[in-house]
């Protein structure tokens, strides 16, 4: 927690800090950037007058006007495609895709166009944009409101992929994304919009109230991309996680009394390889946790990197805890979700080696 507190102290004085859940933090980041930079423009389905189905853009149209924050047709190809053109003009569009599951109709514009514009024009044209999209399961969204497609994007050269796990990070990282001159995918773990989730689905939902990570400065601050956050320090094993799974992993380790070092990766591309190497070299054991399906998931990349780079420090095989290779099943959501049982078993296995 210490690194977090340092950043916070550097960013702002004590007053002007407010308790925010993740939705409010994202809203605050957008508000700050709309006010700071006249080139920032928000577009997406239902984001204007209504403020978005998750309310992340609530009040922003009223405050900044309909030409800065507006609704779009239901056309993800159009949303991303016009954002490329807006970027080429010199704006900094922040398109919202209502659910990550609906990003596919816009994929060609993201993968073939936004991601490659700088490269193919040798830097003459750029497509700065931050595509915001809620992702992940745990809210009974069924197959079409629960996917975690991050590895589709991490596989594409030219895209950055950012996933916050706390309100404080959500605001600071989102501001960095908007200021970045490359196209960024900003996935919002919707399960933790309103509170951290410890993986115990049968217990009452928690809220961000009273949590350090929910103390968010109202003004501008940024968190650099490509820097992982050390959630807690430990010696027994390194846990690499992002989004909702950071909290689940944290609670499992706490409950099991395991002295884990948990890294919240925060950005998958660019990846903080130094932090990963340093931690695995220290602990000699590595567990990777994500919600996305297993095969070719980002965990495979992490596992390969750790094995390639830290092999002689490893005392046990690298383990992955992931979602299953099936679509997200609505009624069996909690059977699918990589929760405490799956994580606990993997930890036991790693520690028993």
């Amino acid at each position, binding site marked *: 927690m210490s690194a977090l507190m340092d950043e916070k102290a550097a960013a702002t004085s004590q007053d002007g800090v407010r308790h925010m859940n993740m939705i409010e933090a994202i809203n605050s980041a957008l508000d700050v950037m709309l006010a700071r930079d006249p080139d920032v423009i928000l577009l997406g389905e239902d984001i204007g007058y209504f403020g978005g189905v998750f309310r992340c853009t609530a009040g922003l149209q009223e405050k900044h006007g309909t030409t800065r924050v507006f609704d779009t047709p239901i056309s993800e190809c*159009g949303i991303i495609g016009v954002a490329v053109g807006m970027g080429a003009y010199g704006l900094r569009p922040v398109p919202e895709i209502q659910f990550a599951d609906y990003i596919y109709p816009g994929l060609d514009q993201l993968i073939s166009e936004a991601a490659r514009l700088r490269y193919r*024009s*040798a830097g*003459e*044209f750029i497509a700065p944009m931050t595509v915001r999209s809620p992702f992940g399961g745990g809210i009974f969204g069924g197959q079409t409101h629960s996917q975690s497609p991050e590895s589709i994007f991490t596989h594409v050269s030219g895209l*950055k992929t950012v996933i916050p796990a706390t309100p404080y990070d959500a605001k600071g990282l989102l501001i960095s994304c908007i200021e970045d001159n490359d196209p960024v995918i900003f996935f919002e773990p919707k399960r933790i919009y309103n509170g951290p989730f410890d993986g115990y689905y049968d217990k009452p939902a928690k809220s961000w109230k009273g949590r350090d990570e929910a103390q968010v400065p109202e003004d501008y601050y940024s968190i650099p991309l490509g820097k992982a956050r050390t959630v807690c320090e430990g010696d027994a094993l390194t846990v690499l996680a992002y989004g909702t799974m950071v909290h689940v992993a944290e609670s499992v380790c706490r409950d099991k009394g395991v002295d884990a070092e948990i890294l919240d990766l925060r950005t998958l591309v660019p990846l903080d390889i130094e932090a990963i190497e340093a931690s695995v070299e220290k602990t000699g054991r590595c567990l990777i946790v994500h919600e996305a399906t297993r095969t070719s998931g980002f965990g495979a990349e992490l596992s390969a990197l750790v094995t390639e780079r830290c092999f002689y420090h490893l005392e046990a095989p690298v383990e992955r805890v992931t979602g299953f290779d099936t679509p997200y099943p609505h009624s069996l959501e909690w059977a699918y979700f990589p929760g405490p049982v799956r994580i606990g078993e993997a930890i036991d296995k790693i520690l028993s080696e």
Partner: protein
Amino acid sequence: MASDSHEKGRNRPKLELHVPQPHYRPGDTADFSHLNIPAAGDQPRPDEVCEARETYPLCDDLIRVLGDDDRAHGPWDPRLHADTLRKILREMALVRAFDNRMYRAQRQGKTSFYMKCTGEEATSVCATHALAADDMIFPSYRQQGCLIARGYKLTEMINQIYSNKADKLKGRQLPIMYCSKRLNFFSISGNLATQLPQATGFAMASASKGDSRIAATWVGEGSTAEGDFHSALTFATVYNAPVIFNVINNQWAISSFSGFAGAERANFAARAIGYGIAGLRVDGNDPLAVYAAERWAADRARSNGGPTLIEHFTYRAEGHSTSDDPSAYRSAEEREEWPLGDPVNRLRKHLVALGEWDDERQQAMDEEQDAIVRKAQKDAEANGILGHGLHHPFHTMFEDVFEDLPWHLEEQAAQAIRERQIKWPEDKAE
């Protein structure tokens, strides 16, 4: 068995799948008499800021200015000065000379690939003249005429085609996928129709900033079947974006005739009707009509009248690209029988009819254009041709993926440079 049980006891009519067929295949006699080609000058010209619906009769018509008498007729006559006409003629001839030389260069192995626009020169050159210099062009791959009309250096174009060491795109792009920010010519994508929503976005951005720049984009008729086309038109109509959609209906999409993009049912200009935007259908081989239509759409966009879709009705006289053999799928006669003639010839004859041009000047001009291209080609070849020498420092391969080089690309660049010394030890470059 299966069909038996399907038939039994049924008296409903059997459904039939329709698969479009072009009029002529190789060996067939081409006859375009089924085309409805109205007389030049007969088409009404609504005011630029009219209601979109006033243009709808024009979606089923064909705007023509140059008549069989080589004279300009009717309300769409843009009344261009003879100097402008000569300039346009020269540029169209230059495009043609350039295409011919580059086609040969590909055959000589100097590059991997080339695409001609023979017969379609008016749709790029004349349209560009109707735009302001700072209007943004979002081209497809057959709009070399836009760059030439904006005065782009031919040597730069050839450097790009050769991917040589002077190629400012650092040898990364397919030949002919030009880009010039200075000339407001957007980077070309090989993924069809992606430029349409982008042009719309640019136009929306310009409008949101209270700027006066508009966007114009080009797409083939075959590519109008892509979802991007429909997304772009939806966004354009919703936000009244100052954008012009030029649909180049050259009848063929590689070997698929326009019927596979829906041409049997409706003209491409008529796509505008469903979106409530202005639509014009133009004789794409009539330089004056193309200029006039584009100018109309530009003026409309600039005065907040919104988007226009223009179908340029033309014919792809040559193959799709250097990789294509059109004699394998279409009648060899089509090109000769195309009833709307050749745009370069039509403009030449018009200038002659005006007493502003003659055969001698034409011949001198043709020779001059060829010499210009040859000189540019020679200059470009001094910078190398494709595959001769590894032209760019290997590190550049990893640049521009992101603004800054992340660790993994830095590591991979070091790897590539190490390999270079092993694979090409005689090569001194980085």
